[in-house]
């Protein structure tokens, strides 16, 4: 496993066209951002909890990749409870800090919402091969190849930067300047990495140009990216999640459209 290139296990979700996964994640995010209430977020999260295990992401990878969310969500919820807009019954007061029914609801809604939007996004990305995503963006969505493949090649460089960073640290040590305080060291090393990555980037661009990239000729795609019936079914299934969440919230009377 590496940060950038995940081990893609063969699973039902791994075979879905990345464009379908991306659309699903975007639709889910938009739908859940339309209202800030705890019912819609809880329903969405509950349904996701049933479906996410089917993605075939190993448990260790799941927890590693989503770790930040598990910290961020409670933190956001907690601060909202303390400082969020107050309404309803006053439950507690500590100086300027007030906790009310309203701020409690709001905190819960925000915490759940971060998880409900973040978890599927991360899991879907972690089960997507970047090359397949680029193929999908180029062929299914017909985005410009220059943009899509430039981004893909750049992504590979990120892996090299991690390697470069380690070598730079060794090199600074070898050159006798590795003893300075950590902040100065990181700043200097960061600058060296910047210089090096610009060099790498331009070398890679040269190599890509030499392979005919960026010419006026019409490009072909070696790997077909097909958006088929399975992908539509997946999309329908994932659209059902925010739909159910919204219906539940409206029925429960908690739906609060953000723009109204």
């Amino acid at each position, binding site marked *: 496993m*590496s940060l950038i290139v995940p081990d893609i296990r063969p699973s039902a979700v791994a075979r879905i066209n990345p464009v379908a996964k991306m659309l699903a994640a975007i639709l889910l995010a938009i739908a859940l951002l339309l209202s800030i209430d705890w019912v819609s977020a809880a329903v969405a999260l509950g349904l996701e909890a049933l479906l996410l295990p089917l993605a075939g992401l190993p448990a260790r990878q799941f927890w590693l990749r989503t770790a930040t969310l598990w910290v961020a969500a409670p933190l956001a919820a907690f601060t909202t409870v303390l400082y969020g807009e107050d309404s309803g019954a006053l439950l507690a007061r500590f100086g300027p800090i007030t906790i009310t029914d309203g701020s409690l609801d709001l905190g819960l809604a925000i915490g759940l919402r971060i998880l409900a939007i973040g978890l599927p996004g991360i899991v879907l990305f972690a089960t997507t*091969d970047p*090359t397949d995503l680029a193929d999908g963006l180029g062929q299914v969505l017909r985005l410009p190849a220059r943009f899509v493949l430039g981004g893909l090649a750049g992504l590979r460089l990120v892996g090299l930067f991690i390697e470069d960073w380690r070598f*730079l640290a*060794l090199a*600074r040590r070898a050159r006798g*300047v*590795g003893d300075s305080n950590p902040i100065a060291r990181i700043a200097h090393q960061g600058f060296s990495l910047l210089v090096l990555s610009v060099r790498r980037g331009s070398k890679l661009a040269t190599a*890509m140009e030499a392979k005919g990239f960026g010419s006026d000729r019409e490009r072909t795609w070696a790997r077909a990216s097909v958006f088929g019936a399975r992908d539509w079914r997946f999309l329908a299934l994932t659209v059902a999640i925010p739909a159910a969440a919204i219906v539940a919230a409206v029925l429960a009377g908690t739906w609060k459209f953000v723009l109204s």
Partner: protein
Amino acid sequence: MAAGARITARGWGWRHASRRAPAVHGLDLTIEPGERVLLLGRSGAGKSTLIQALAGVLGGDEEGDATGELLIDGHAPQSARGDAGLVLQDPDSQVVLARVGDDVAFACENLGVPRDEIWRRVPAALAEVGLDLPLDHPTSQLSGGQKQRLALAGVVAMRPRLLLLDEPTANLDPAGIVEVRDAVAGTLHASGATLVVIEHRVSVWLDIVDRVIVLDPAGGLLADGTPQQVLQHSGANSAGAQLAAAGVWVPGFPPARPVRRHRAAGVPLLAASDLAVGRTEFARRRPTAVSSGIDLELASGESLAIVGENGAGKSTLALTLAGLLAPAGGSLEALPALARGLGSQPFRWRSRQLLTRTGMVFQDPEHQFLASTVRAELEVGPRALGDSPDRVGTERVDELLERLHLAHLANANPFTLSGGEKRRLSVATALATRPQVLLLDEPTFGQDALTWQELVALLAELVDDGTALVSVTHDRDYVETIADRSLLLNGLSSEGRVTV
């Protein structure tokens, strides 16, 4: 498409935007379709500039100024893209995609080759360069030599009419060199493409090329003709002798080898027993060993060569001996003459304490550059030792600039130097603080015969004066000239062993 491309140059020249002197100028040249040309010249004579111009990747007006004209079949190289396939020096920066098959297919895609045809060409190209790997093999796991063959496969699959190779075998072990050379020969035989190859080691390509062109650093050509004419070596005034004197590696004219002084045994400095070396991978806690069971003693005034195939762990061993990586197993001990009051584990020493004890020159010189001029780069080490700025930058730095032919570049930015110049500079930076143990990773890569000779002479002098030298190298001449012993690393498959 069984024809080669014709190259014509009329008064062509190029100056990099950041330099005052042109890299190439006054070039008049015609290369006929199907000719196979070996392009020679001193380090810094503009060989890479010319080959990149032919590939159409030299860049626009903001990168530099062109003079005269350079045409491929009557067209500007930029508009003839796809006709010319280029393999560059640096294996790392040529891989575009994450899987081997996709990477080979990339060039074909850009040229608009139909999908069925792409997947016919890809396995054929991989087979042609001897890269026997599954199509979905991750490119990040390839060795430098494999990456170079992958780059060649990508070019082979393009079916170019002009094949441009810029020191394609410089990073390979001897077996890899022959494989790539044969792959190129096979491709040329099948396609009839024109070939222009840069390579310092003339002998590798001599059987394949039918014309040798030597660039003159002062502009124009130094020599042009059949290999026999250009490289003939009868008589001291023959063309071959003149070329050799100009720094070209001419078969039959080995560079002068320094006479080594005979010395008594030195003081032991480093001792390794059952040492395992490795790197700590991302998200891992412990290093994964790439080579183990290494027993080794190094004394002052001794020169050791670490040899072995690509990926055997040679560089990792050097980094470990230099005190930069922690051993992955076994023990590495610095003996009192080297430790001089410090602990016995080099890895525990402070960065500044390493300077006068071990000096490591990395395989990629760019990793080590810290300053904005060549001179300042050489002053980094002495300054870190606490030498005052007045003392720094005088004798030692000037001497190194002179000895390594860098004096005319003292104010240039290290990143703008040619491949060979960068390597000399990185060697010089380590020498600036006079370490007791000097470790060099592929020190002679990219050097012409003259700078090779100078470098080896300088190293021999250091060893004779008591420096312990450890060199990771594929260069047989270098090993024969300067190594007292060789350590052959075979990775994990068998134990490291010392051959005398």
